[in-house]
């Protein structure tokens, strides 16, 4: 068969340390994409064998067996069998085993070895096994399995050269005499064999003073575990909003400066306005969230790499079960407090498709950081800064209630969806709790870089396009001299139509107009209201906010302001969220549904708040 470069694939159980081994073998040169037609990540990189031959190394999704129970496992099976479209069958398989968990991991190893593909075994994380008092004999295991067994410690780069040499040798040997498929064993037989082989490979085993057992005694304790988790989450939220602030302000200043510089350099023209008000303002308003996303992901990556994330899922499972979800949904929903886009992307770890869909659909209701500028401006303008209780201000209380409204809304919606659109068996929760481990700086840095890159690429394409389109809608057709450009534009006409629709929930035409550009991102509502009320052209945000607050109070009633806040708790005004939902659900059906139900909910909730406020005489 004529073909491209040699392909080597890493196969193994989840938590075998496959990704760390992959990172160590390929370095930062990795290509991450989706397998065609499915939302399963394909990670590939280049590895130079000791004989100088470059090979493509593919990191397959972790699996417990070749009988797939999830889309991820299905991809692994198909790639190994050579049935995955667009992926050449791997020439050599590297089975990655967790040295401390051989009895379990050898079950999959035997199943893979039965196929008779050229195979090498990596006895990974052998240092952790030694830490637990377990001394292994790779030669004995190799004799049992009939393939080379190489001890490796991915995070310390131990054994990588030997592994490469073994892969090259297996490749050579397969060219001379291809290995033959072996006799097929049933699962109970494989398990018995695995137990025997695992015991045979143990040279000595001292009493198990396992670190993770002692940590779990606190972290999984029914009464101690949850307070520890909540304290940790509190720190994460503090960090997301305080550590990121200076960087966010810096980026904001940078984009303002860039726009000002362009205004000074270029003669006044439509092109200049397109660049400053469309491209820089639009893309810039999204990129300023990069620091927050990086801080949040830093914590999520640390929690994942140390093994704590699975414990968090365990602790939250009971709560999530109440609305028909499982502990696995907790991680994506947590991410969504910074931004729904990475949150929705991380739903891939949820095995149950209905669970995953429900989680995707409710993720936009978690109060993301883009809502904060909107909330901050409206609260500052309309909610008096007085104490309701010692230490608790009314403004902070309103902000807190908006967060709670989103969470409660999401829970209610999940409950309803699990009985209707995503109806099915109540989802279970079965999850291996991996051993605790110290993360390496390199793996963390690589993970952060990959997340940042995905985010920036989206800002550079999708958000760029939307920003330009919105600018065009607001600027064409051109107004006659002396007339208001906004009134003449397509967006202005749409706003006139929209105003009729949103009038019953207390919104005026100015609000209707601001809703159109904020389809790109919610926080754009603030700048577009500022433009509408012609509050100077100062770039000083604080001065502008003060000016805007005065103007808002002149044009809006308190009931309108509260309805506006209520609207933003639910309104799906974020093109990137819709786009990522389309990608993750492979079609327009679910993003369309998401848009529909969230707008309906936003409309109903804003109306409810407005008319309740009117009834209490706040109009």
């Amino acid at each position, binding site marked *: 068969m004529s073909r491209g470069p040699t392909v080597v694939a890493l196969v193994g159980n989840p938590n075998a340390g496959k990704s760390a081994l992959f990172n160590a073998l390929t370095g930062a040169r990795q290509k991450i994409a989706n397998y065609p037609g499915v939302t399963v990540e394909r990670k590939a990189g280049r590895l130079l064998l000791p004989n100088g031959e470059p090979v493509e190394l593919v990191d397959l999704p972790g699996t417990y067996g070749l009988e797939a*129970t999830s889309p991820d496992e299905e991809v692994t099976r198909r790639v190994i069998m050579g049935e995955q479209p667009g992926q050449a069958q791997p020439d050599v398989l590297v089975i990655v085993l967790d040295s401390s968990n051989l*009895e*379990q991991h050898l079950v999959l190893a035997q199943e893979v070895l039965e196929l008779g593909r050229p195979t090498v075994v990596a006895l990974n994380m052998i240092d952790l096994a030694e830490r637990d008092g377990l001394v292994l004999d790779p030669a004995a295991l190799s004799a049992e399995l009939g393939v080379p067994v190489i001890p490796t410690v991915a995070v310390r780069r131990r054994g990588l050269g030997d592994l490469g040499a073994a892969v090259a040798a297996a490749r050579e040997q397969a060219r001379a005499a291809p290995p033959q498929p072996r006799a097929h064993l049933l699962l109970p037989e494989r398990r018995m064999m695995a137990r025997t082989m695992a015991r045979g490979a*143990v040279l000595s085993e001292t009493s198990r003073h396992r670190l993770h057992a002692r940590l*779990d005694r606190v972290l999984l304790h*029914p009464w101690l575990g949850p307070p520890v988790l909540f304290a940790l989450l509190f720190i994460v939220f503090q960090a997301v909003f305080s550590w990121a602030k200076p960087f966010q302000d810096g980026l904001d200043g940078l984009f303002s400066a860039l726009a000002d510089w362009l205004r000074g350099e270029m003669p006044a023209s439509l092109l200049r306005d397109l660049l400053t008000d469309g491209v820089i303002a639009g893309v810039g308003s999204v990129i300023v969230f990069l620091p927050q996303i990086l801080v949040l992901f830093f914590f999520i990556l640390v929690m994942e790499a140390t093994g704590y994330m699975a414990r968090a*899922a*365990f602790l939250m499972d009971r709560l999530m079960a109440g609305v028909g979800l499982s*502990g696995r949904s907790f991680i994506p929903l947590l991410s969504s407090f910074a931004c729904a886009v990475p949150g929705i992307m991380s739903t891939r770890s949820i095995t149950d498709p209905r669970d995953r869909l429900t989680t995707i659909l409710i993720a936009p209701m978690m109060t993301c950081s883009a809502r904060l500028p909107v909330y901050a401006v409206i609260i500052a303008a309309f909610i008096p800064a007085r104490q309701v209780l010692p230490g608790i201000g009314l403004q902070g209380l309103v902000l807190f209630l908006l967060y709670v409204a989103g969470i409660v809304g999401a829970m209610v919606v999940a409950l309803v969806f699990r009985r209707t659109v995503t109806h099915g068996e109540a989802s279970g929760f079965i*999850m291996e709790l991996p051993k605790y481990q110290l993360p390496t700086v390199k793996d963390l840095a690589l993970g952060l870089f990959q997340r940042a890159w995905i985010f920036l690429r989206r800002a550079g394409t999708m958000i760029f396009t939307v920003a330009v389109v919105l600018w065009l809608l607001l600027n064409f057709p051109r107004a006659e001299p002396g007339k208001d450009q906004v009134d003449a534009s397509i967006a202005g006409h749409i706003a006139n139509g929209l105003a009729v629709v949103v009038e019953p929930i207390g919104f005026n035409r100015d609000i209707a107009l601001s809703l159109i550009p904020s389809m790109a991102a919610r926080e754009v509502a603030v700048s577009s209201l500022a433009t509408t009320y012609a509050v100077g052209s100062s770039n000083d945000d604080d001065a502008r906010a003060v000016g805007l607050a005065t103007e808002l109070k002149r044009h809006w009633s308190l009931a309108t302001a509260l309805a506006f806040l209520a609207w933003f708790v639910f309104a799906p005004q974020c093109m990137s969220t819709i786009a990522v939902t389309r990608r993750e659900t492979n079609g327009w059906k679910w993003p369309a549904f998401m848009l529909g139900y969230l707008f309906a909910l936003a409309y109903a909730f804003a109306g409810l708040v407005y008319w309740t406020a009117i009834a209490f005489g706040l109009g």
Partner: protein
Amino acid sequence: MTLDQLPLGTLARIDSVDWPALVPEEAQRLRALGLDEGAHIRLAYRGVFLARDPLAVEIGRMTVALRRVHARAMHVTPVGDDIADQSLTDVRV
């Protein structure tokens, strides 16, 4: 006795599992994790606050989280801790 009734920390053997009572994919997942007839397990953690769900089970050197509905389908018999020590000592060569 079913697994959810097992006292914490007691080593037990899974005698039988009522597989048809479980969702097929979940049954397959449990089996893949080694939670099958004949396996020796220990219930390590049960519930959060006052809830009795979920459970964490030690099997070999692995800890697996599962729900009470799964545990209820597994019939277990406690085995003495001396046998547990046996299972550790007999692997020493």
